[in-house]
């Protein structure tokens, strides 16, 4: 397996340089693959004892898989996982290459997919995925907004793994210096937030937020916090005349103009801004906690709360999500074994989640796990607050939004528009351009 995937990766790289060559896609007869049909045997007659998994982060999702393997081995001593470390960009390239060349037999049993990329991949390449119809997993135990990323035509294609619920982390010592408490920054609107953040900046010289100038992450979080997106229910782009988007961009502009949001160029610079203490907070998916905690000297000085909400927008809340990923079972999988393995670990073992939380910060989406005592333990780094319970409660309140198959196109187009707007282009013009770009891509 490993050998052939390596060869494939080399081939894929080579073919790119040759001009995106030729994965023989002419013979699109789909001989052996039968689409995304629920072809798996009903769970019960489980055969085989090894599974192959593609996933990317050794300290996070690979670690979680290894722990899941141990948990499952307790009841299935012969069971073995082969985990192939595959960064997301490579994984996406592999999926595309395998689907185009009709070689789905090269797929692993299970692979991890970014939530935002789910619609795109399942809609374009249904032949790569098996749905969870026969897996016997109770999806109502996961937050609806997270499950929705991987539901296509009413079928579940993903088992939510990591939680992307948005948190607002602040340096409580800096807030205190300016005469504020964490409560002053909880459950408020962006305009209240701005007033207070300006005050903090004036008194301490520290902005509360930072982010990449080239990215629309902050805008996208604001959008989802109001349940809004860049597409309507029919999948048509709604970048123009989108009240929530306009409000989000206007808010973002105000933040940057007031100096309470520092724009930087790259991810590393962004992380540096709060690690070296120049910026006294951040708003992002809760996976950012790992980066926050890399500044060990700031232990005890941080705490988290919910994010501000948009004003005057229907359905606005203080909760949103950014990122996160879910496990897919491939069309080439040993379906019965893969489904049973996932069901008994990621969707059925509090013991498993209790193990992975403290050492990797991998927060459960699975509701029963959050009731465990491990989640309620105070975290010294975060002013002895039980932050994990907090985050799980935020996750349950995140409004669903429609990512759509063209999420990446729309997100990039909006990023470009924001760069232009910040450079002085009129908002309506820039958004019209973005809308045209997405519509052109959809043709």
């Amino acid at each position: 397996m490993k050998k052939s995937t390596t060869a494939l990766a080399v081939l894929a790289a080579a073919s790119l340089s040759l001009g995106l060559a030729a994965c023989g896609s002419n013979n699109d007869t789909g001989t052996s693959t039968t689409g995304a049909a629920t072809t798996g045997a009903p769970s019960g007659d489980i055969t085989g004892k090894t599974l192959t998994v593609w996933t990317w982060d050794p300290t996070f999702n690979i670690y979680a898989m290894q722990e899941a393997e141990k948990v499952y081995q307790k009841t299935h001593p012969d069971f073995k996982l082969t985990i192939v470390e595959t960064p997301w960009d490579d994984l996406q390239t592999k999926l595309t290459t395998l689907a185009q060349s009709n070689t789905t037999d090269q797929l692993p049993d299970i692979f991890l997919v970014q939530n935002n990329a789910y619609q795109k991949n399942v809609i374009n390449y249904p032949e790569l995925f098996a749905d969870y119809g026969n897996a016997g997993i109770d999806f109502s135990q996961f937050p609806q907004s997270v499950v929705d990323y991987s539901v296509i035509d009413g079928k579940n294609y993903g088992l939510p793994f990591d939680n992307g619920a948005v948190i607002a982390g602040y340096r409580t010592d800096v807030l205190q210096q300016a005469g504020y408490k964490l409560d002053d920054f909880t459950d408020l609107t962006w305009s209240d937030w701005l007033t207070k953040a300006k005050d903090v900046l004036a008194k301490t010289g520290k902005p509360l937020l930072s982010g990449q100038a080239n990215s629309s992450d902050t805008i996208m979080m604001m959008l989802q916090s109001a349940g809004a997106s860049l597409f309507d229910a029919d999948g048509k782009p709604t970048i123009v005349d989108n009240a929530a988007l306009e409000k989000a961009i206007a808010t973002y502009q105000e933040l940057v103009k007031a100096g309470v949001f520092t724009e930087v160029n790259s991810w590393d610079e962004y992380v540096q801004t709060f690690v070296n203490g120049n910026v006294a907070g951040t708003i992002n998916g809760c996976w950012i906690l790992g980066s926050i905690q890399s500044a060990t000297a700031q232990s005890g000085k941080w705490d988290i709360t919910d994010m501000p909400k948009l004003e005057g927008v229907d359905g606005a809340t203080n909760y949103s999500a950014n990122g996160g990923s879910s496990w897919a079972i491939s069309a080439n999988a040993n379906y019965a074994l893969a489904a049973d393995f996932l069901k008994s670990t990621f969707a059925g073992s509090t013991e498993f989640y209790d193990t992975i939380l403290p050492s990797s910060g991998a927060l459960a989406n699975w509701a029963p796990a959050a009731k465990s005592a491990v989640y309620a333990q105070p975290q010294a780094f975060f002013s002895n607050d039980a932050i994990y319970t907090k985050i799980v409660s935020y996750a349950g309140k995140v409004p669903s939004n429609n990512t759509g198959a063209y999420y990446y196109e729309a997100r990039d187009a909006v990023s470009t528009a924001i760069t232009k707007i910040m450079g002085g282009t009129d908002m309506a013009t820039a958004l019209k351009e973005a809308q045209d770009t997405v519509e052109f891509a959809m043709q």
Partner: protein
Amino acid sequence: MSTIDLTPDQAGVRTPARHRGTGLEKKRSLTGWIFLLPAALLICWMNFYPMIQAFLLSLQSGKGAKLTWAHPAWYNYARLFKDPQFLQTLKTTFIYLVIQVPIMLILALILATLLNSKTLRFKGLFRTAIFLPCAVSLVSYSFVFRTLFSTDGPVNDALMGLHLISSPVNWLANAGTARFVIILGLLWRWTGYNMVFYLAGLQNIDYSTFEAARIDGAGPVKTFIYVTIPQLKPMILLTAIMSTNGTLQLFDESWNLTQGGPANMSMSMSHYLYQLSFQNNPNIGYGSAVSYAILIMVAILALIQMRVGDRRD
């Protein structure tokens, strides 16, 4: 002796043996073909077959694996002219080409001439130092440049320290400066590489021609322009074609150094092609059309360069 040809014209050697049919000659050419065969087959299989397939792909449209023949057949190629983002990347790539390639080749030529001097000491050291950037991976040097030119990076620190600027320049946030950083990176990475070609070319030039020029009273500049450059012409042509080809296919710097930003203003054509095929909804047919557009441009430019540069009648 006026022009030295690196690829000696074989025609002169072969003409006397034109009596075909002699068993020996036949056998010889057959042996030659047998030696060529494995490489030729490999090239056909690994290069030409994918190229043909990619061309066929470029005539198909559809998202994902559901491809159908496009109507009309040139649909994807017509789409290129209506795609503002492609036209933008085309413009950006040509800006890189027009500015970077001439500067790099002239610089390489000057460096090669200097390092070819018989009086210079520590030549080996200098040659190695200038060639060394080529040994660095494209990705890692891109990351180093990104760090160097970040807002709080060493370049800004140095410029501020020298009081050349009063506040840090946000290099990668403006189209002009971001492109400048990419061009600077390309110059750093590739000048030494081209210099080595010129150095090799210079070894083939008879030193007596330089001496003759000196006796005739030509200074170093005149010797360079009237003696060195004309004799290096085939090499200059080769490097010009290679650099043009390389710049039109530029990917790593655009991807790693600027991520195409700001607002896609520094994105190269190959970066866009990757985005179309693997990051966005896979539009493989259109992506192939972009790759063929690049191929056609490289071919046309190489043809022009050969016509202009290779006048040996």
